[in-house]
């Protein structure tokens, strides 16, 4: 479903990485490991069309992302992608249910339906009955569960997780990783987990290592 061929990215004169190849099929869950600063987040941004690539081709479901106009990319992100970030990126002024329902806002769902879906999504990540709680009442691990619920509520084809356990202690990290994997698999989505931690990467089906000269299995 996702094919990267010879993808390169530089900022100014500085080449972050070149010649990245990747083939990901529906339902696969892979990890990309790399040192800090090697360009993991940048690579995810490229895959989601949040930043342009300098060279190479990025095919998502046979569509060439690098040639897609901005509004088509916006639609694609809304309908096909789910994101989980390192910093939880949960909006502080919205309740948990409102946060989780954010991706549904633009899809013209009835408020009641959105609320029901949000409650179900929260229950699926172990936060049953916490719809009206505010983010500040939650622990880091719980916040990341909210982020996972939000990433999956729109039934994305591809989930992109950027260091989702970077701010968590070991035990919480283990639980969140297991939950993320389970949720991705349960939704029949594909997933890419980006991390610098070997332990986190072990939760994926396959592992790749990102280096400036490209992506290699390992």
């Amino acid at each position, binding site marked *: 479903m996702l094919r990267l061929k010879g993808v390169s990215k530089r900022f100014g004169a500085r080449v972050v990485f070149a010649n990245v190849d990747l083939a990901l099929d529906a339902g696969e869950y892979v990890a990309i490991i790399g040192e800090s600063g090697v360009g993991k987040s940048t690579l995810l941004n490229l895959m989601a069309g949040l930043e342009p690539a300098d060279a190479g081709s990025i095919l998502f479901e046979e569509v060439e992302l690098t040639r897609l106009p901005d509004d088509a990319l*916006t639609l694609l992100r809304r309908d096909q992608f789910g994101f989980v970030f*390192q910093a939880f990126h*949960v*909006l502080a002024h*919205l309740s948990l249910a409102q946060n989780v329902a*954010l991706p549904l*806002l633009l899809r013209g769902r009835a408020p009641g339906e959105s609320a029901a879906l949000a409650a179900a999504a929260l229950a699926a990540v172990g936060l049953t009955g916490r719809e009206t709680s505010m983010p*500040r009442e939650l622990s880091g691990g719980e916040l990341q569960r909210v982020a996972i619920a939000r990433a999956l509520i729109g039934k994305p084809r591809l989930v992109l997780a950027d260091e989702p356990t970077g*701010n968590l202690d070991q035990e919480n990290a283990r639980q969140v990783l297991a939950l993320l994997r389970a949720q991705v698999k349960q939704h029949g989505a594909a997933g890419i987990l980006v991390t610098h931690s070997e332990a986190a990467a072990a939760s994926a089906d396959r592992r790749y290592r990102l280096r400036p000269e490209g992506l290699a299995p390992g």
Partner: protein
Amino acid sequence: MAMHDAQPRALALVLVIGLAGLAVFPIFGADEKFYMQFLAKVMVMAIFAMSLDLLIGYGGLVSLGHAMYFGLAGYTLMSLTPEYEGASLWISLAAALGVCALAALVVGLLVLRTSGIYFIMVTLAFAQMAYYVVHDSKYLGGSDGKYVYVKPVLSFFGWQPFSLDKLAAFYYVILGTLAGVYFLLRLLLASPFGHVLVGIKANEHRMRSLGFPTFSYKLVAFVIAGVLAGLAGYLAAALDGLVNPELLSWHQSGQALMMVILGGMGTPAGPILGAGALKLLELLLTSWTKHWQLLLGLFIVLVVLVFPNGLASLFGKRKRGGAEHG
């Protein structure tokens, strides 16, 4: 979907008392034309400041050219007012707001691609351009401006409930508009649109990755803010009975900015407090010393140092819109 603790109780109470005070003032102060005119002007500035806060406090868009819409609306009313009779309020108001919406749309399409200091500079540049067009245009009265000889006429299918020539009547129209704009903004900010706007201010990248067309959201906010600023400018021109290039000047934009900062950004009531405080202080200081601007400056510096979240924070703490976890 209500904003959670967007406004503390004490602030709401102060607001209600303030509105009630404003509402009864003409009854007791019927002979105090000067103060009625003064309060009407304060309320107009409060509407203007609220419109700017929609951009700054919620969208994170610091515009230094917001007076452009204020002035454009005033000049539209002037242009549509014949010399010996009043313009129709509905037609002239619709035209003024339409002009502002169009101007904000065009400017927004160009400036919203920029951010930070560039955004500030480009909004300022557009307002300065408009300022000089007005300033150098003979038809628009040049640097002296022009009179709006007769106040606009409010009529419903020929029936005129009251005349805006009566200061008290105009005063209540402005008070009603202020309250209307306030509640409109509260509704807007509690709506999904408001949630997205605050989300963009906190972290635009996140909103983009969730699939939100953030540019369109910012553009809509920019146009709404321009139209509301136009509403204030229209009222100002009608109230004062004249327009001049100062309405579009960067002083004017800066004054609204000061009101927002002084009162507290990101709170619908903050700009109202800010407008009241600034204008009241100006009134007191000008009657007391000719060095009033120095003292006013000192006061603002003090307030910002002591209450970094503005005067609104005097009435209870609130979580700033846009704070986030992580």
